[in-house]
Each structure stands twice: as C-alpha cells, then as structure tokens.
C-alpha cells in the first residue's frame, strides 16, 4: 500500500505543478483533473473507497467538467497564452514558492518521527459515513443543504427571463 500511496502522491504533486505552470487553460485543467484522480487513488489506498468514488464523480466528473465547459465557451486562443506568459514572471512565483518550500521542509521531520506506514487502519464504507453524517454531524449536513438551496435560488433568480425578454 505504501508504494501506491507514494506513486499516486507523486503524480498528484507533479500534475498540480503542471496545472499551475501551463499557459494553455485547457491543458492546465487537464493536469488538474489528473491531480484530482491521483488524490482519489490516495484516498482509496487509505481505506476510504466511498470518498474516493465521490471525489471522482463530483470533483473530477462534475465540477471540473463545468470548468472545461466555460473555458471552451470563452475559446481562449493564442492571445490568452501570450498574456499568461507575461503574467508568469519569476519575480511573481519565486517568493510564494520559497515560503511553500519552507513548509515542505518542516514536514520532513514530522514524517521521520511517525511510524512511516500510511495504510489506512479501518475501511470507512458507505454505511459508516451515512451513520456519521446523520448522527453527530447532522447539523453540518442541514446547514450545507441550506447553503446549496440558497445557491439554487440565487442561480434561478439570475437565470430567469424577464417579461419583456419573453414577449
């Protein structure tokens, strides 16, 4: 299981780096999708198959499709890539990268101190997650459903047609 974890984590990290550095928006999105799929494999290896499946269905399969859809509609051509090239100057990325590198270095002693095994202890299947969601976390579930309802009403309001448009 350790090998699966490290290989898919490495894929996720490399894919995310590529997603940041690609100039073409669709290529960047494709790398981001690969990164999400790699994260799903990591979750699967850690003993959370249900969450892994949801990661693929919801993040990779629905949310990212909408991103791709919007980029397709905008149909950014070579001028957009040129703009990206000008935005991504070394002075813009060296600072944040150095700070992130410090955080990464801090993680190394933490990893060295732990047992080194990353395999999940118990498998979390769908029924366990359901019991947890509708047991101790029921308030959070209700609150997030309210938030989604508000989003739905808002989207309906923005998307509705006025009377003169219909006429």
């Amino acid at each position: 299981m350790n090998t699966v974890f490290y290989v898919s984590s490495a894929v996720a990290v490399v894919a995310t780096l590529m997603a940041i550095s690609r100039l073409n928006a669709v290529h960047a999105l494709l790398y981001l999708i690969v990164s999400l799929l790699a994260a799903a494999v990591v979750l699967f290896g850690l003993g959370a198959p249900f969450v892994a499946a949801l990661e693929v269905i919801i993040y990779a399969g629905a949310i990212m499709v909408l991103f791709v859809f919007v980029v397709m509609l905008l149909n950014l051509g070579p001028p957009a890539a040129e703009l990206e090239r000008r935005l991504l100057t070394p002075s813009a990325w060296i600072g944040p990268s150095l700070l992130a590198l410090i955080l990464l270095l801090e993680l190394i002693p933490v990893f060295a101190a732990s047992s080194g095994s990353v395999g999940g202890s118990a498998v979390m299947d769908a029924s366990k997650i359901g019991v947890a969601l509708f047991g101790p976390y029921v308030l959070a579930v209700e609150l997030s459903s309210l938030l989604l309802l508000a989003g739905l009403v808002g989207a309906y309001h923005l998307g509705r047609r006025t009377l003169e448009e219909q006429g």
Partner: protein
Amino acid sequence: MSPTATSVLVVVGVLFGLFTIASGLIWVERRLLALWQDRYGPNRVGPFGLLQVVADMIKILSKEDWIPPFADKPVFVIAPAILMVVTLLSFAVIPFTPLIQVVDLNIGLLFFLGMSSLSVYSVALAGWSSNNKYALLGSMRAVGQMLSYEVFMGLSLMGVVALAGSFGLREIVEAQKTLWFCVPQCLALVVFFIGGLAETRRIPFDLPEAENELVAGYHVEYSGMKFAMFFLSEYIGITLISALTVTLFFGGWLGPWLPPLVWFLLKTFILIGLFILIRAALPRPRYDQLMSFGWKLMLPLVLLNLLATGGWLLAMR
C-alpha cells in the same frame, strides 16, 4: 489454475468478448434497422452480409489517420482514447456470472458512475481540440446533456442500492433472488434506461452529432482509427448500459435451467435490441425539449421513487 492466471484469463476473456460483441453489433444494428424500416440492409458480403464488419474494418484501418493542422494535437489524440478506456473500465465491476467478474468492488456502482462521468471529457475535449465550430457546438450540447442526465441516472440507482443495502453489484444481483428489482423499481428502471440512452448519445438523444445541423458534431474532424474508436465506444457503451440494466433490474445471471452466462447474455441482447428498436422508431427532439423533459419530468419522478422506496423500507423495518 493459480488465482493470478484465472484473473488474467477473465480480463482477456471479457475484453475479447466485448470487442467481438461491439463490432458484431455494427452489423446487427444495420440489419435490424433495415428489417424495421422495410429495407434489405448490408446483405452482399458473405452469408447474410456477415462479413460486412470485416470489410468495414479493412477500410477503416487502411484509411489515412489525419490530424487537422489547426487542431490541438495532444488533446485531439487523447480524446477518443479517454472514451474507450473509461467505457471498458466500467465493465470491470460487472458480474457476468458468480465466477466471471474482474473485480468485486464494494463501491461497484459508484465506480460505474465515476467512469461514466469521466466519459464527458472525451466528448468535450474532442470538440474543443478540433477547433471547428460544428465540433464545438456538438460538444457543448453533449456536455450539457450528459451532465444533466447523469444526475437522474445516479439518483435512479439509489432506490436499487437502498433495497439491496449495498453498492456492490454482486450483492445487488443476489438480493434479487426472490423478486427482480424491475418490479418494485419500475420507475427507476425507466429513468435509468432513458438516462443510459442519453449517456451513450443514441437516437433520440443524439443531438451532439445531429447530422442535419452539425454535420457530425464533436467527431466531425476525426477519421480513420480515431473515428473508429468513437464508433466502437458507442457500441461498447450500449452493451455496458444493457449489461448494467440487466444486473440492476433484471436479476443479472439469475434464471432457471440455463447456465448463468447464457441468461446474462440473453437478457443483455434483448435490451440491446430495444436500443436499436428505439433508434428505428423515434425522432430527435429539440434541445430545449430534451432539457425540460429531463429536469421537469425525470427529476421529480426519480425523487418521488426515492421517497417511496425510503418510506417503504422504513415501514417494513
């Protein structure tokens, strides 16, 4: 035989069977369509025109594999492969018989839904990378259609999951020993089958490739082997939806007298025939009709089904 050898044999056998069925379906579909539309269909090459498939294969394999100079080359090449891979991967979780199954995942059904949601990318990317307005319009339609119908398809399956108490397809089949789920879940069956038609982009849901307005939609720039991959994926997709409908609603391999595999194939082929009959019988709707049919009829229906199933399960406890 060692377990590894058995599983390799199962994987190779399933793949071989699938490609045979998918390429055979090209001939079956054309003959059946011809029968229902009062024509002959392909009947010249070999007995009953059976070798038509071979002729088509030779033609498509020897055709120039052309990539338009204005296309985004890497994405253009990878798009048909994505469709092929995810459609074939979905078959990994289907239990053909108690012994023939590639992997018995406890999230089998979710795995299928994940793979079918990934297949949207193939169509979207094919349309975008072709850099052609007809292709782009086709893939925009496809994305809207597939995202919407995936919602009803997923929701319709939850009733089955609630009755069987598992996401694993093997458990779902075994839960149907007394009664096939097509009886208590008849609403879900209808919604799932219509959703499956939309996911495979078959008539009446073939708006993404509507010939009379979009030439061929998202695969208008594809030719040769890459086009063949889209074409074959459609037939593998039909087989997938039929096999899954059989597994979820018609008791999978269950049945008297005949061996399990025969039952499974028999039921699957009846459903494939239904797919072809629908193509022969129905016209194509307008895009707004497609969307309002989905969101205003299918979604309430499937939610009602879920509510009734939940209520029934609660009352029976």
